[in-house]
Structure formats: C-alpha cells, structure tokens
C-alpha cells in the first residue's frame, strides 16, 4: 500500500485504533488522513506513548520537593544531590520485545534507558535491571533468562556503564510474558541540564546516529497490545542494538552539549522520529518543517511511513542554531557518526514533512500530543487478600526449610547473572550487585549515589495497595543499608490489560498505595513508565509496580559491608517476629500464596531507616534488611559462606514467624564488640534485641535450649548458588 493512500477505518483498526479514535482523527483534521498520517496518530495515541489509560491516575503521585529539578514529562527526572550535582534517572520496560527476542529485546532496553539519561546532559554512571521470569521449566524459559542476561551484559559492558544492581524473581504468571525493566542513573551539573525542546524559530533540526532502517516498525503499537501464540511472528518488530554506536553517541552528545552547541535534544525511542519530533515541538510550542529525503536510510526505497515509524536504535534529534550547524556536523564526524540537517523549527503548531517534492504529512500538534485521548477505564477494586489457615507446623525441620528456600530460584544467589555484567567500569563502584542497594561515587568526588529496585509482586498480587506501599518501604530500607538517604523515585508499572476491570483496579490501587508511601516518606516520583498489556491468552502477570529509588550519601567515608565478621555482635532491630502473609516461606515451603500483606508503619520505618543510615555512614555496623525469606535467609546471606553465627531468641516466640516472617521494617545489624555499647545507645527507644555473635563455621539459631536450626555455612552458600548455576555454564 502506498504511504499516501487514504487511511480507511479498517486500516485504523489494524493500527490498533478504535473506531471512536478514528472518527476523532477525521473530525480533528477535517479530512481523511493518508497512511503515513494514520501511522503517526496510531503511534502517538498508542498506550505506550500516550499513557491514555494511566495518565489520570499518575497524577496521584507527589512529584515535587525541595530537591526536584525536573519532574515527570521530560526524558528523565532530575534531583539535586548537593555539591552542584543532580542525579538524572529513569526506569523503563522492554517486556514484549524481550519475550519475543530476549537478547536484542533486553539489549535495546538498556540502550533506550541510557539515551533517556544522557539526552538530559548527564553522564550515565550506573545501570540496574529488575527482571521477572516464569518457572524455569516453562517452555523457552531458560533460553529467555540466558538471552536477557547476555543482552543486558553485552550492551552495558560495551558502552562502559557499570551494571551494579537490580533484582530477579520467578513466578508462573510470567511464563508467557517476562519483564525486563532497565534503570539508569546519570549525573550532571545542576546548571548543565538539557531538554527535549524544539525551540527557536529558524533553528535547524539535526539527525544524529545510526541510519534509519525498516527495523522496529510498530514497536510502540506492539507494546500496546496483548500477547498470544503468534508472538514469534512479531520478531521483525524487535530492534537490533549496536552498543558501539551508543558509546560514540554518549561521548559525542556530551561533548556537543558541553560546547554549548545544542538548543534541544531527544533520543528516538518508541515510535522513532515520530515521537521525538512531535514531543520536542509540543514542549516548545513550535512547529517543524522536515525534509524526509534527507533522513539517512539504511535500505533503498524507504517510504515516509517507514521513516516516521522505524524504531532503528541509536538515533538522536538535535535542535541547533543555524550558525552552529557546521560545527555540530564536524564534531559528529570526528566521532565517526552520521549527522545531517533534516529540517527546521517554524512558527505555529504544525509538524509537516516533504518527500520527493510532495507533502508527506501535515499534522497539527495539539491533538496528537497534549490532546491525545485519555480514558478513565472502568475498574473493579481488588478483593482483600485471601487468608489461609496454616497447616500444622509443629513438627517442621526449620533447617530443611531454610535449605529449600535458599535452593529455590526465588532466593538463589544472582551471582551468575551479575558476573556477566561489568560492575566496576567507571572506577566508582563502592557497593556493587548482590547487596541491598548499589552505591557509586559521582566521578571525581566523594558524593555517593545509591540506587535500588524493589517490588514484591507476590504481595502486590494479593493486595496491590499494601504491596506497592511496601515496595517503597523496602527500597527505603535497602538504601539505608548502604547509608543513603532517599531523594527520588522512578517507577515502572507493569500490569495486564487496562481494558480488564480487575487489572485496572489493581493498577489504581497500586498507584494509590505507592503514592501514599511516597508522601509519607516525602520522596517525590520524578520519572516513570507504564507497561500495560502484559498478558498472554487472557492471563495477566502479577501486578508488578517496580520502584526504582535513588539515594544520596553526602560524603562516603567507609565501605558499607553486607557480611558480618568473626566475633561481631549480632542485633535484631525491630520486632522479634515478622508476618507470614505473602512470604517466601509460604510460597516456597508451603506452596501457598495468601495474605494478609500488612500495611506499612511509616513512623517506625522512618525511625529505623534513619538510624541504620547513620550507623552505616559511620562505618559502625554491617546492616541487612529482613525481607524475602525472613531473618533466617538474611542471616544466611550475612554469613557469605564464610562466617557462621550463634543466635538465640530470648523469649518464647513463634519459630516460623521469627525465622521466616517478613515485613515490619526489621534489620539485622552486626558490630564489633567494642562498638556494641555505642550501638545500644544509638538505638535507645527502638526495639533492639541482642541475638548473639558471629563466628564459627555454622549458622545456629535457637530459642533457649531448643535448637531451631544449625547449618554449615558452606552448605548454605552452595545451595544459594544452585538454582541459577546454569547461567555460568557454556
């Protein structure tokens, strides 16, 4: 079909537009659009680009605060971290492409999030990945895990940005729809930020980076649709990444910006040229006039439709003053990158393009961007989490339960994954992957930027409101374990179809829960991403609202450690018992998924986190928050396969709640005996229990004379390595 053929209602449906939306296009334009124009509407009005089902609810997030320099709406959020620096960060999903083609899907996810950050003028300093897979024995699953890990590694390693953290979890609901959420944090000088704005009539539009090919056409519409067994046929819609070109783009763009040659800049992500050009024009309130013949093409005979909708990777749009274009092009050439002028900024609210001397499209901005459809979809509020009566646990072998938890893929060591990522390029990684949170220095300073990704999807599936609030609380605790104070959040909200009332109910409850927690902790949401339609054949994933939290340590003086040392005194900060609702013990040891998910006690969490933060900053204590798997699993991790401990619970407590209970903001702390008094004093007024001392070759936990468990630490470490060992093999 010709690129300028009149677009019929049927074509609109094929592009994922509803009949109402098609009529709205006809009314807006007062004419029938051509195919290229229809493609542009479909891309910009897709769920992925327009947030049409989510926008009304995303407003519930607090997005302002003293430190906020740039909130949602730009390529990434920016938060002041002191010393004249800002942290620039965002998280984004690449779920559908990664399920279809895991290696390239994950790789280009990393590439896209890097561009969102350096586009703002920030040098990326760390990457994190929040991954969700199905059962390891599900069809293709090991291939998917392996491909995603290789894709993330090969891209991040080559561009030279360390991958320092993230999380991985497994649940059958992801069997047909894995999640790959990539987060990037960069740093810039506060006065050195750049924005995606096409401002200044007469300024030139410069295209920079890889040539435009036919790859990735319809990526945005694919991400806005549900999956079925025909997913494999969509492989041509997955883009192919080139990290070498990305590396050149990073250096070239940062140099262009430092030289003052850039008025506005944006990468071409989902919906390629279409979204970057229209969004840049809309933000600036200007129009654009383009010549598509000038766009560098990878294939012969490409049409305007293909130029506008290609999602070829590693491409940027710059807006440059006319007198500086030659300088820009020459600098790009030095980096070996293609660059050329493709149009200019014009007055008025229209974006138009010519092709072979004819008009390819001419479209008003407002209806496409600011006035894109918004839906308040019907929703069904989630039912309270089902409660379950626990089976008789009186005769359980707690040691065996700990072993089975550690041997599960859910609680396995992710070392075989992290080892495939360059964790220390940049020579600034203080704490890398495998810890509660990552900690990286701002280049050339002692300012520490910490980051963590968190979401207990099991809990969110049972109670989206409480689960999402708990995700925020857990992120706060994780940051505290490396001494960092939270300064901002980026989120990646992964859900099923918004056209399903149950899913929409989960979505809204999760947003409200997360928003409540953000307000209570006073942490603004500065960027984010919504990924709907994560369902296959009508079955949705667990609601997975991933929190990416960034924190700051004003001056890093010592290395936080996630292991205890021989002879240290071990304390439990927080209540003696946790709760079993949505716990790993229930999921793995009992095969149950049931509630309740307790609400967050914000005041208690705040007090504990502030205290732990302070202890870690002073280098006084090793700290670990008690989360997945409870105290027993946290203790096993603190052993690190080397140093055991003898721990005793003082009073008559429920063994299962003490060992495997979760929630309630609990931490394990380990301090040198000489610092024990200082610790006790610092914790005055908070529940603190001395459990015992670290040392020896086994982890023993008892209550009085009753031994609950006694396990060799080498054996525990070996078990932790088991489930994901296949990722270290050829």
């Amino acid at each position, binding site marked *: 079909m010709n690129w300028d053929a009149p677009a019929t209602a049927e074509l609109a449906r094929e592009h994922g537009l509803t009949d109402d939306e098609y009529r709205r296009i006809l009314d807006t334009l007062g004419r029938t659009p051509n195919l290229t124009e229809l493609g542009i509407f479909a891309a910009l009005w897709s769920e992925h680009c327009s947030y049409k089902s989510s926008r009304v609810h995303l407003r519930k997030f607090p997005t302002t605060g003293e430190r906020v320099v740039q909130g949602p709406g730009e390529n990434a959020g920016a938060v002041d971290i002191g010393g004249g620096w800002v942290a620039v960060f965002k998280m984004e999903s690449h779920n559908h492409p990664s399920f279809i083609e895991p290696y390239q899907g994950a790789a280009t996810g990393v590439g896209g999030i890097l561009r969102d950050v350096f586009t703002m003028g920030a040098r990326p300093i760390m990457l994190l990945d929040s991954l969700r897979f199905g059962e390891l024995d599900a069809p293709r699953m090991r291939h998917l895990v392996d491909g995603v890990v290789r894709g993330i590694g090969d891209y991040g390693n080559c561009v030279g940005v360390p991958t320092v953290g993230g999380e991985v979890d497994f649940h059958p609901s992801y069997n047909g729809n894995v999640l790959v959420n990539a987060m990037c944090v960069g740093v810039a000088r506060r006065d050195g930020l750049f924005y995606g704005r096409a401002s200044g009539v007469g300024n030139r539009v410069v295209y920079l980076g890889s040539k435009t090919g036919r790859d990735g056409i319809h990526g945005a519409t694919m991400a806005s649709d549900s999956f079925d067994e025909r997913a494999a046929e969509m492989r041509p819609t997955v883009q192919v990444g080139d990290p070498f070109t990305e590396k050149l783009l990073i250096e070239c763009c940062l140099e262009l910006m430092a030289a003052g040659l850039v008025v506005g800049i944006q990468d071409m992500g989902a919906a390629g040229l279409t979204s970057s050009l229209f969004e840049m024009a809309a933000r600036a309130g200007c129009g654009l006039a383009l010549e598509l013949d000038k766009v560098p093409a990878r294939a012969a005979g490409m049409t305007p439709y293909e130029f506008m909708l290609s999602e070829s990777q590693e491409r940027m749009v710059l807006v440059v003053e006319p007198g500086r274009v030659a300088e820009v092009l020459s600098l790009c050439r030095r980096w070996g990158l293609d660059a050329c002028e493709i149009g200019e900024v014009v007055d008025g609210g229209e974006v138009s393009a010519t092709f072979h001397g004819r008009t390819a499209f001419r479209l008003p901005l407002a209806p496409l961007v600011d006035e894109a459809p918004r839906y308040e979809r019907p929703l069904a509020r989630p039912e309270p989490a089902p409660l379950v009566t626990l089976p008789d646990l009186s005769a359980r072998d707690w040691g065996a339960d700990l072993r089975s938890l550690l041997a599960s893929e859910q609680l396995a060591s992710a070392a075989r994954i992290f080892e495939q990522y360059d*964790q220390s*390029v940049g*020579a600034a990684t203080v704490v890398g992957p495998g810890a509660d949170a990552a900690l990286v220095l701002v280049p050339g300073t002692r300012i520490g930027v910490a980051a963590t990704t968190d979401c207990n999807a099991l809990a969110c599936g049972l109670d989206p409101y409480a689960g999402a609030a708990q995700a925020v609380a857990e992120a706060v605790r994780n940051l505290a374990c490396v001494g960092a104070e939270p300064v901002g959040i980026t989120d990646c909200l992964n859900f099923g179809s918004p056209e399903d009332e149950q899913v929409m109910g989960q979505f809204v409850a999760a947003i409200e829960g997360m928003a409540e927690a953000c307000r209570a902790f006073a942490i603004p949401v500065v960027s984010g991403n919504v990924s709907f339609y994560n369902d296959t054949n009508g079955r949705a994933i667990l609601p997975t609202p991933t929190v990416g939290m960034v924190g700051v340590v004003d001056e890093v003086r010592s290395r936080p450690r996630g292991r205890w040392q021989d002879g240290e005194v071990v304390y439990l900060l927080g209540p003696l018992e946790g709760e079993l609702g949505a716990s790993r013990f229930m999921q793995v040891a009992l095969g149950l998924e049931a509630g309740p998910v307790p609400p967050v006690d914000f005041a208690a969490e705040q007090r504990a986190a502030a205290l732990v933060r302070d202890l870690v900053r002073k280098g006084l204590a090793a700290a670990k928050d008690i989360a997945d798997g409870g105290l027993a699993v946290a203790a096993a991790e603190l052993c690190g396969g080397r140093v055991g401990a003898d721990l005793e619970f003082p009073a008559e407590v429920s063994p299962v709640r003490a060992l495997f209970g979760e929630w309630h903001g609990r931490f394990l702390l380990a301090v040198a005996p000489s610092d024990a008094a200082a610790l006790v004093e610092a914790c005055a007024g908070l529940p603190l229990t001395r459990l015992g001392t670290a040392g020896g070759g086994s982890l023993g936990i008892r209550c009085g004379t009753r031994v609950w468990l006694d396990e060799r630490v080498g054996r525990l470490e070996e078990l932790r390595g088991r489930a994901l060992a296949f990722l270290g093999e050829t």
Partner: protein
Amino acid sequence: MTEQGTGVRGQGTGGRRARVAVVIFPGSNCDRDTLAGVEAVGGEAVPIWHERSDLAGCGAVILPGGFSYGDYLRAGAMAAHSKVMTAVRRHAEAGRPVLGICNGFQILLEVGLLPGAMLMNRTLRFICREVHLRVERNDVAMLSHYARGQVLGLPIAHKEGNWFAEPDVADWLESQGAVALRYCSADGEFDDDVNPNGALHAIAGLVNRDGNVLGLMPHPERRVDALLGGVDGRGLLRGLVEAA
C-alpha cells in the same frame, strides 16, 4: 573526552610530573578511569586521540580497556591498525614503557608486541569478578613495587581473555620469563578452579623480552582507592609513571 593541549614536552624532570599517554580509540571505555588512575599515583595523564601520529612527548603509554571499534571483528583487531599504533610501536621498540590493560592487552597481541592470542573465555560468557593474581616478575620497572610471589586482588571484566599459544610456544615463553602475572588462589596456589577464563598456564599478564611492554587482562586502574575495594593496582601504575 576532548584532547588536552600538548604544549608541554619532555619528561618528568625538574619536579615536573611524568607524562603518561592514555590512548583513546572509539569504543575505549576505561580511558577516564585510567587517566584518573595515573593522576592518583602522581603522573600527568595525557589523553591521546587514536588519529594522532605522535604521543605528545609522553614517556609512557597506556592502551586502556574497552571495546575499541566495538570489537566486532575480533577484540583489538581494528585498533591494531589505527594511526596512533605506529607511534606506540616506535615507543615500544625504543625500550620505553607500554602498558596494555584488558582491550589494550588484546591490541598488543594483535600488533605482535606481545605473543599469543585471545580466545573467548571457556564459559563463552563475559566474566566480571575479583581475582587473585600472583606476581611472577618484579624485576621489570612496572612491577617493581610488588614482591615476587605477592598475591594481588584486582577485578577482571572481559569476554575474550582466554590467552592461547601453541603449547611449545607457551613452554618457551615460560622459560623466557614472559609470564608476569598468573591467576591464583588467595594463598597464591594454582588449580583449575582459580583460572577464570581458561587461559593457558593461567596467564593473566605477559611482559616482553626487554621488560618494557606489559599486557594484562585485570584492571589495576579500578584498584587505586580503598573505598572502591582496594589499592593493589597502585603499584603497577606507579611503576609505569616512574619509568616514564
């Protein structure tokens, strides 16, 4: 990285800091870390763009880690043919110090300044982890701050670090003392478990006959600050700066 002015010529005499060139190829990604590492041990680090045909009067040169030209053909293969390498070769042949780290080591193999070749790691995967290395030579300037037999802790981060040569060539190199650093256990012992990538004879670093060209897979520039996990890399960089 923008190249800095090159007005200052000459070597580290008269209180002036010794100048060390750090070559930047398209795709180098440890260049900034290496520049900072050189400065951290008292050298003056000078970035040298790959299209340059001289080394700006620097007394020593480092080829840093990364993925030069994307390493799409074979690690280091393209960089070996870039303009700056003529100057690097001249520098090496004049007996002046040349250090290749990771991708830089791969490039030194490609240009023949050091013997052998790199295969993919035996797991066929990228590996990033802290390794132990035994210092086999301390009679060359760059390793003179270490004791012979000393065990260093440095990170590796590579996919092609499985050093290979014909077995008789490897044996001959051993007899010539070409092995500078070897993967080992924390106690300095060898067994197959401590060899992360399958390198023949657990070779992590090689030195040429004159002792002025050293290549190694681990990253000394990432271990110059205790806050970042250790300072075992300082000695090597200091040895290089002193020899510049």
